[in-house]
């Protein structure tokens, strides 16, 4: 399986995603430059964390205009796997690939710490090898991670089983403890916590491998 990690100016978890996929998972991973217009045969696109374009204006607001995002949107529309982590989640909501918005943390401060999560559904290419109601621990590192949407959208997300992860102890004020969501077609995931930073015992947790293994499963089945 081949992972394509998009590099926007200001991305700073591109290396982490690349390292997790290639070194810790043992699959192929390649960087994709923001001004490129094709995805080099990637099977899964990762929009990594960081501060794309300095997060000026609004987090992810400028990245959505990158040439590569047009290709990512087409890829997603065709059923391709797309995972946006942290700033990548913000880019997905700004691009309209996912609903809702990520706003300033409730406490108005950047927070970096490991958080406990429960998978909201196993019915997705990103969570199929996790266990329902079994907690996983990933780090968070964000200032704008409070997930917000109108009540109808939230109800819809729940009704359609599209909550991928929920916080056990909500760190940032996200509505309904939402840490990650799926699109309606279930092939696009956005989440604030960093599974790629939990893929090795030295990092303090290997729970993030579950997300990557799920992707590998899904890809193998799909193929």
């Amino acid at each position, binding site marked *: 399986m081949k992972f394509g990690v998009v590099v926007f100016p*200001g991305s700073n978890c591109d*290396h*982490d995603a690349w390292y997790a996929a290639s070194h810790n998972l043992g699959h192929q991973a390649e960087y994709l430059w923001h001004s490129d217009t094709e995805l080099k045969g990637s099977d899964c696109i990762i929009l990594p964390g*960081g501060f794309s374009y*300095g*997060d000026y204006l609004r987090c992810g607001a400028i990245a959505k205009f990158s040439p590569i995002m047009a290709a990512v949107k087409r890829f997603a529309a065709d059923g391709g796997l797309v995972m946006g982590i942290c700033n990548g989640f913000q880019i997905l909501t700004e691009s309209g690939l996912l609903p809702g918005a990520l706003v300033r943390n409730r406490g108005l*401060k950047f927070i970096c710490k490991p958080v406990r999560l429960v998978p909201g559904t196993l019915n997705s290419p990103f969570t199929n090898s996790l266990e329902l109601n079994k907690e996983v621990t990933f780090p968070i590192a964000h200032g704008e991670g409070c997930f917000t949407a109108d009540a109808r959208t939230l109800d819809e997300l729940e009704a359609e089983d599209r909550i991928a992860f929920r916080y056990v102890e909500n760190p940032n004020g996200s509505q309904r403890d939402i840490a990650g969501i799926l699109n309606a077609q279930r092939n696009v995931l956005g989440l604030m916590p960093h599974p790629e930073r939990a*893929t090795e015992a030295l990092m303090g947790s290997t729970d993030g491998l579950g997300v990557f293994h799920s992707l590998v499963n899904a890809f193998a089945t799909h193929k």
Partner: protein
Amino acid sequence: MSQITPEVVAAHSITPDEYQRIIAILGREPNLTELGIFSVMWSEHCSYKSSRVHLKKLPTRSKLVVCGPGENAGILNIGPDAEGHNWCIAYKIESHNHPSFIEPFQGAATGVGGILRDIFTMGARPIAVMDALRFGSLEDVENGVRNRHILEGVVSGIAHYGNCFGVPTVGGETVFEPSYAGNPLVNVFALGVFREDQIFYGKAAGIGNPVIYVGAKTGRDGIHGATMASGEFTEDSMQKRPNVQVGDPFMEKLLLEACLEAMQTGAIAGIQDMGAAGLTCSTCEMGSRAGTGIEIDLAYVPQRETGMTPYEIMLSESQERMLLVAYKGRENEVLDVFKKWGLDARIVGEVKDDGMMRVKNHGEVVAEIPSRPLADEAPLYNRPFTKPLRNVPMEAPAFASADLNADLLALAGSMDLCDKRWIWEQYDYTVRTNTVQGPGGDAAIVRVKENGTSIAMSLDGNGRYTFLDPREGAKLMVAECCRNLACVGAQPIGATNNLNFGNPERPEIMAQLVEAIEGMADACTFFETPITGGNVSLYNETLGDPIFPSPVLGIVGLMKTEMPVRISFLNTGRDIYLVGGIGAADEVRMGGTQYAKQIVKELWGLPPALDMEFEKRVHTVVRTAVAGGLAESAHDLSDGGLAWGLAESTFGNGIGAEIELDSELRPELLLFHEGPSRVLISTADGAALERIAAAQGVPALKIGRTAESTLVIRNRGAVLIETPVRTVRERWATALEALLHDDVRV
């Protein structure tokens, strides 16, 4: 250009003697631009004119040192990768004290930005940042609100810059003293990694090579205060320009990636960041180091504002800029990389063979100064020094504890000892996935993926000790840093220092500086940690009140990459050893302790006594035990002494301890003295630890066992401390936030 009056000279902080020296170097009177250039290059900050005589006493070499002081950062060899290429670390500490007082957020942010540029200008990718912070008391009736504001601003400034840039802030220390109220300290340490054959130096090599300016445009920010104070030679428009710079971490991130990529082309001959003194410093230092000269034309310098004078352009301290020299004919390879990253890159001049720094503006020469005298021949002052300033008694006041449990709780809730999570959770400490141990341990650890080793780092400084005895205080600081590294199993290999002191023109302050440097030199020689660079920050005084003499040391060590041994007890029923023994203590040497500060609320006497030779043997024992997998936990005793060290070991996992001591010391001393050379180790194999200790002639006292959730300390049967772990931990964990948000008191 006839405005050079004695007043103008004085406004540039140039003494009449220094002015005569300038005339001798130039063979004529300087013009205003040249005077400005001399004033920044010969400032204390750039030239170390008060400290250089003494800095020479510091050890700077070892077989691992690839590059010592004088470059942008020091470099150590950390061993080969699988293919036999040697890998290196570049590291340095630098202060941004004054700007952080004027504007805490931007002052601290640009402090981080500046030290990061020092690291990547050499070709190294930054992988860790740490901070040593000093603030005035949060409880101060008069200044508490301001002190809290400064702390919050500094912390969010560091977070803003480091998080966006993408470097983990993995540790540091925060201490509070009234003497920092008007003069907070913000010292930032950064460390990067690279291959030994990919090191770049700040040298303008190769006559005829093009000189390229890259990064942010030049604006009027940061032009030194002297110009703003003197109306006669400034335009009205710049009268109120802020002289604290504004940082843009996004720009710095682009600059990092572009510089590292451009270096890979092989088309770069030399590179230096524009930090203090901006274009001036980079131009003359690069020429001076290479024995060449640089000629630039300011017309080509990208400018943010119109109508800037040569004086302003040369002295601007706009952030996120670099100057580099490319090989002639290959400049387009370099320019293309910067274009890819969307950055300004302009050829502004070329390397000349005449040793002159020549600045033109639209073809007209506006400054012409020989590089070497400007960069390297700043006046040196052997300033007079007497006895270190000291206005506290030697004798201890009468003190006796009313309630030892209450004392322990008070220490837990004190600003210095309480949990600093509120601060470090605002820093991304896991980005780049190298953080093996982040904030909260004895030392921070980052792994080097490229060659399989890990680097342990510790920052330390104790202003109270150094105030009581500058020489011994400095030695204790070195010893503690090395002890911290031993606790994670690392071998110290190098150091960097930040010397924060008051006004060196006062002989009693100069004496503090001299003695501290000499103490540091002794200890760094003894512990084999050469100082490969650092920073001197003097004149830290407000209204004549100097800060405590506050050297800060950063020590780096090498270790295997493996799961770290942490400070917290892991399992119940394990033996607890005090390696190094109870140690000696008396009332006089209690005067600089946290007990004296928080409970007795006085400062007196002397710092704890240090026997370096014994200390080193303790390190060997601890390092051997930890690296050999014998220790389940290891924690050095320092601030707060034995009782506090035990308490801290219980917090992580809520596992308590039952301790039985056998000592003549009175309880206050036994529990809270801060004698060095002591480490707590919990282990399942006490016999093996005892053998290692015996081989080094170091006492390893079995003082008790880990237990369920209670901490009990007895001496000869008498209960001194008995408390649920939860009670102390709760106080420790919530104190800082309570202090920051307790607006009722104000």
